[in-house]
């Protein structure tokens, strides 16, 4: 049984996480100890109490450094826990849970790679779905906007303790733009992994069209076993989706009963 430490970065609009975010944390807590950092100064007491029931540790402090600011703080604050866990997960509240995470973690447990995440995404990739090894073979990963999905990173203890990982988290600082955050941290960490020759595993062994996790492919990935759906795919924030209604129907049909009603409310 893998002993997991799950660092959760959140932001509560209006001072309280949504119901489905609580369910997400509850689901994650089935697989490890959750330590949450909310980038809020206004977290309501009842929300805090509820989080404290679900999590091994909860912090709420406004820093304005996005999720990586929360990750940094969690990393620094809980250094003393390094030897207590086999694996460290960095995740956030950017997705709706649709299915239980059993299949996702089962897949993780079968993969010995020190770094693991659901999938590799390239928002500029316009080709046919391609195996990751072939993608790396034919395309220059350092000249493309490709990265491991930053909202769910799994690091084994040995990787977590590496000097370059320590340096990475310690170097996180406030950036002027969201783009800079993406370039330096989301993509930056993936590049560090490649440069250091760290074996990386993924749930999906393919690279899909565009940044599939945000577009019309997102629901298809759920059909193939991904247990969550990015919130931005539902709001079509980056991509227009003419068939979003049908796809959300599909999501409802696939959903685990404990999430179904909440998803219906969210999709309204």
């Amino acid at each position, binding site marked *: 049984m893998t002993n997991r430490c799950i660092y959760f970065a959140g932001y509560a609009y209006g001072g309280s996480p949504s119901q489905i975010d609580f369910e997400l944390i509850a689901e994650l807590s089935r697989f490890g100890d959750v330590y949450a950092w909310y980038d809020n100064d206004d977290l309501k007491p009842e929300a805090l109490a509820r989080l404290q029931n679900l999590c091994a540790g909860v912090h709420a402090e406004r820093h304005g450094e996005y999720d990586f600011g929360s990750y940094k703080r969690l990393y620094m604050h809980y250094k003393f826990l390094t030897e207590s866990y086999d694996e460290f997960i960095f995740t956030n509240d950017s997705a709706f849970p649709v299915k239980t995470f059993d299949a996702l973690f089962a897949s993780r447990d079968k993969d010995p790679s020190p770094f693991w995440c659901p999938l590799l995404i390239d928002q500029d990739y316009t080709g046919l779905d391609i195996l990751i090894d072939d993608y790396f*073979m*034919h395309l*220059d990963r350092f000249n493309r906007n490709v990265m491991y999905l930053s909202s769910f990173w799994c690091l084994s203890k040995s990787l977590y303790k590496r*000097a370059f990982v320590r340096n990475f988290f310690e170097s996180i600082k406030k950036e002027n733009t969201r783009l800079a955050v993406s370039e330096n941290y989301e993509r930056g960490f993936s590049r560090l992994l490649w440069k250091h020759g760290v074996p990386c595993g993924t749930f999906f062994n393919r690279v899909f*069209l565009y940044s599939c996790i945000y577009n019309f492919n997102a629901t298809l990935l759920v*059909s*193939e076993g991904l247990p969550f759906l990015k919130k931005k795919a539902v709001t079509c924030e980056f991509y227009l989706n003419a*068939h979003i*209604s*049908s796809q959300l129907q599909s999501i409802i049909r696939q959903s685990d009963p404990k999430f179904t009603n909440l998803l219906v409310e969210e999709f309204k």
Partner: protein
Amino acid sequence: MAGFSHKLKMLYRYRHIGVLILRNIFLHPLKVLGAVRFRSDAYIQRNPDIARLGKKSFFHYLSMGINENRKMRGAPSHKIKYVNQPSVFDWEGVLDPNYLQDLQKVDRLHVFFNISRDMIGGGMLSIERFTRLSNDFFSDNGNTKTIMSGLPLSCPPLHYSMFKTALPMVHFDWICTHTNPKEIVLFIPEGFVAQFLEETSSAHIDWILSRAHVKCVILNQNNDLMPKPTDFRAGLESLTKDITISTAHKRYCTQQLANDYMYDVTLLTPLLPDMAQLSFEEKDDVILVSPDPLASHVEETTKEKILDQIAARFPHLKQKVVENMSLAKYLDLASRAKYSITFGEGLDGYFIEPVLAKGVAFSVFNGTFFPSSFRKLSSICPDWESFADFVCYHIEHTDKNSLAYRSLSDAAAKEISKLYSLEITLSNMRNLLHGEPKFTPQPYLHRLEEFEDIKNSLRETHGFRFIDARRHNPIAFCPDGQFLRYFENTDHSELTRTYVWEDYDLKLKPNQTYVVLDIGANIGATSCYLNKKHPNIAFTYCYEAIWDIAKLAQMNLEANVDREKYLLKSLVLSDSYCAEHTSPILGSSEIFSDRQIQPTFETETQAGTPSRRTEINYVKALDEFDEVFDSHLDAHFVIKHNYQGDGTVLITELLQSRLLKRLAALVVKVHAENPTSIIQSFEIRGFSVTVDLDEETENVYTLKVARDVGVGW
């Protein structure tokens, strides 16, 4: 221009209708002429099933109505009704009245698309049998049902007049409007995949996408009809990611097919009909002839010439071409005919069914469809040129000889039984539906047949050979049997240094375990060379900062060194940690202790590699050395360092690291006016040092450092 291109597109889209109309002009000229009296309203009144076509019913009459003996006017026929969407469906066969109602309640639907044209073909019969199999064995009343639909979607559903079907054909519109299953499996014939995607409307797509799970099976019954991946993959993958190709023939159920299409591939062998098995004495003096034209173009050989030759030799054997007959009539003929000749794909119904009926069938070996075991059969000819003589010879020897006849028939029947049976097809279907494919796509790096072939065939060589590969970089075959891909014009020096000058050739103690650090690995030539030469090298760390070069090193290491014995990192080891995003110009010049070197590096970088954005990652060498040391507590270390830049920084780091106490040997290029202090740093620690001046004007020295006698350079 846009209007013209649209018209062209429409012409192309409906080209199949044009072909049918042309055919009818030749076959039924009077009826085509009679179409001057055509009226859409009268035609639709007479044939309500095509009401949706409206004015286009004229083209329906010309292309299909004539063949189906439809009347242009008069009262509608009550014998057969078709789907008159979206309302009630009626069918001539025995139809469970609850069938349609059940379809609307089901959880899982298997949708088989057959060809919505009233004709008969091997592929169509095969799909019909799969539909029947799914209906009989894989439908359970509560949860799963099977339905047959038709393609193209622009054609109405129909009732086949030449063979019976287990289920009625239901138009896809009706399915999308009236059913609501949680999961669907779409079985689409290979030649119609692209058309299906073209013709699906927004409503169809919405219906498909709103299922909880969609699986698509491409029924590959003839590999020659498979569309190119670029013709359909993008469209299909926007509907589902769960796509499998099923193949009718083992011959193309291959890893290659899976790799070409990037889909799982699995076998789904066709079911064979039950044949009446007549004895030799009961057979009629008939040769059944397939309707196909000659499968391949052959000089001076035509189907007619072959048949004429046989007819001249055996006038008592009546030749009967299979055309315009129902399935039942055809199967009866196939059972009674003494011989059968197929001119088509070979391993088709015209070959198999007569054999199942204890007859003798002749064909020419076709590598696409016949397994190689069929090549040895006496009834399979190797080529078309000798086919006429071949058939005559065997008829001569079996026409009056029941033993010889039976022997020929049984031999073919035995091979066929290895491929086809209900049990085999059931098992195939189960694997298909349960997601257990025979082949899954493999990435290119695992398909290095090119490397393996080359490697195997060149083990005996002793000298270099250089080959320009069609893709990627040229290949050097090395004297020690390894092969390396390299950059033309820039890496000959690396090969020369390694194999000719033997700069990195070292002596090691055979009973000692070593770990190599190849810093500035370039294309990995040194690492490959050392690993080949010294089996007691337990592990090799390669550091190559330029990613383009590191990729080549990766390929070379993959090809020449055991995977468990190396790790490639695209890093610069230096005296501080810094991650830079740079253009070809390097970042912080203070990383290098000798500023003079940098301009050289920039120039060479720009000349040697394409000028584009290059990211160079620097890490602190001391951290890296300590990490390596901790990972190999029992090994001794060998370091080769050859950067474009100065090696002094690295030496400074090395002298502080714990790795130094187990350093066995080191070779490094340094840029120093006077390397004395560096030399002394090693000598006072018990190392022996040899120094070569490489370039006097640049003060470049190669230092070779060794600890023990008998170990080193």
